[in-house]
Each structure stands twice: as C-alpha cells, then as structure tokens.
C-alpha cells in the first residue's frame, strides 16, 4: 500500500492546489514556524476520515477551509486526495491505484470519493480496517502523544494496543 501522492486544495493554509509526491524510504519535511507542515499532517488525518475537530486543532470542522487573507479571499471548499498503489489489494486487483478524496463545502455539505466514484465515509474507513491506520493510529505521531501515552490519558494506551492487536 505504497503512498504515491497527496493533493491539497483549500485546506487550511493551502489555499492553492498543492501536490506532494512520495518516493520510497524516508521523506523529510522542513520549513519555518507557521509555514504549514503540521497542516499537511492534519490533511492526511482528515482525508482518512477524522471526525473530531479537536484532533485537527479546530473549534469546528468548517474551520478546515482556507479562511482568507487580506489579499486572497477565502475558499469555497476544502479538498484533499490521497493516492496509494494497490499493492495489498485492498481494492479488487484490476485497480492499480487507490485514490481517496474528501471535500467539505462552506455550506456544510461533505463528499467522499473512492477512485472518483462517490462513496460514504464508512467505505473509506473500511478500506483501512486492520491496516494500522485510522483514528487512534499509532502511525501518526506528534509530541502531545508522548504525554498521553505515558500518563495514559483517556485510555490512550489501551486504544493504541487495540489498533495493533
């Protein structure tokens, strides 16, 4: 299930269409404070189906949409697309790639797509059952988690074990 690319448009500070290609191995992401690095992580959590706005550092889900600056007006929608190679055949084998997409409009309407076909959030989540990726995944790690694992906040430790076991 190799990651191929991530496309972000209108999501948080990524007002313009942005494409990140992933190669084999280890990819480093660097840049000044506030430039948008953690927003990339949020976009991946979001397209995988994260529903808790607090996990995305938001007061409400609508806040993921680019909210404008003096020189650029706010976006009408946020859209993120994550593309994998179908190496583990989580989709039938005639598909070489798996592309999941999530869109949120200012109206509050939400759309999910799997290889450009409309689907439900449930379908996207089912794809990742038993892969180690989903909410409470041990695969997306930031410093706040070090604390919640060690102080076992809200059973954080338990939930992670259940993801893996």
């Amino acid at each position, binding site marked *: *299930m*190799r*990651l191929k690319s991530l496309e972000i448009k209108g999501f*948080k*500070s*990524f*007002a*313009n269409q*942005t494409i*990140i290609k*992933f*190669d*084999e*191995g*280890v*990819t*480093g*992401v*660097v*840049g*000044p404070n*506030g*430039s*948008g*690095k*953690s*927003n*990339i*992580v949020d976009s*991946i959590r979001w397209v995988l189906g994260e529903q808790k706005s607090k996990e995305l550092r938001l007061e409400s889900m609508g806040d993921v949409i680019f909210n404008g*600056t*003096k*020189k*650029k007006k706010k976006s009408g929608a946020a859209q993120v697309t994550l593309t*994998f190679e179908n190496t*583990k055949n989580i989709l039938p084998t005639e598909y070489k790639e798996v592309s999941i997409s999530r869109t949120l409009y200012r109206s509050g309407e939400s759309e999910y797509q799997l290889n450009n076909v409309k689907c439900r959030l449930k379908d996207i989540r089912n794809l990742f059952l038993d*892969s*180690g*990726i989903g909410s409470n*995944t*041990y*695969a*997306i*790690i*930031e*410093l706040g*988690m*070090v*604390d919640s*694992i*060690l*102080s*076992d906040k809200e059973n954080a*430790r*338990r939930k*992670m*074990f259940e*993801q*893996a*076991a």
Partner: protein
Amino acid sequence: ANAMFVDAFEQIKEHFKNVFRTFFTEDDACDLILLNEDSPLDSPIEILAKPKGKRPKSLSQLSGGEKTLTATALLFALYLLKPAPFCIFDEVDAPLDDLNVQKFTKLISQFSKNSQFVIITHNKVTMAAVDMLYGVFMQEVGISEISAVDFSDKSYDFNYQPILN
C-alpha cells in the same frame, strides 16, 4: 479473543524491550505489564522503564528526552507487530540530543524498507539522514506552498542561516 490479544501483547512486549534497549542500554530494566491478567481485553497496561541503569520510581521522574524515547519505543513496538503502510512523525525529535536523534533516524531507516516514513523536523541531524526533503514555505502571506529541496543545492537556506557559519 482473549488468547489472541494476549498473544499479540506478548509480541508487542518483546518488540518494546528490543527497541527500548536500542535507545538506552543493552540490559536495561523495561517491561509492559497487563495489570489484570484475568481480563486482558480491558486490563490497564503498565509501562516499566528504567533507562541506563537508573531507578526512577515512576514514568514522571524520567527526563523529557527519556519520556519521548520510551513512548516512541512503545509506538515502534506496535508498528513492528502490524506495520502500517506509512508513518508520520511531527517534530518528535525536538526533545532529543544528537546521539539519540541518530539512533532514532537509524531505526526509521531500517523500518523504511517496509513502509514509507514522513518526518517533520527542525533538526539538522534528522535532515541529513532522510532520503528526500520537501520545504514548506509561505511566499504570499498566509498561503502555504511546497517545493522539493535538492540536497546538492547548497543554496537551500530559505530558513537556515545558522550564525555558526
């Protein structure tokens, strides 16, 4: 289901001990303990961590970096049981000294044969250890952009002009 969980738990425990001892010392006391062996599926899980021959009475007595390494050892242990297709680290190396950052990047480098790793960092040692580097920046106020950074391109410094030079 009980038996399955206990079996997975035993494997995670083994991985945890190996990673912990890679980060600290060969024969350090460390363990994962199911406090309530009769009901493993909802038993609290205790972490025992005594790095480098010390005797902290609890996890709260560990230093900032020791806590980060201990929690990371646990996350890697879960990963080793069920490798996620990709892992993302957001500035997890910030509390680590250079030697520990190197151990961390070496481990990631080994795991990256099986999964892709994305590491967000401000740390030069980490930057030197990755296979490819993306720079995130805001050319226009409030709007994020990304561009691949060429390692051989020594003019890469849109953020880093250390006064050491």
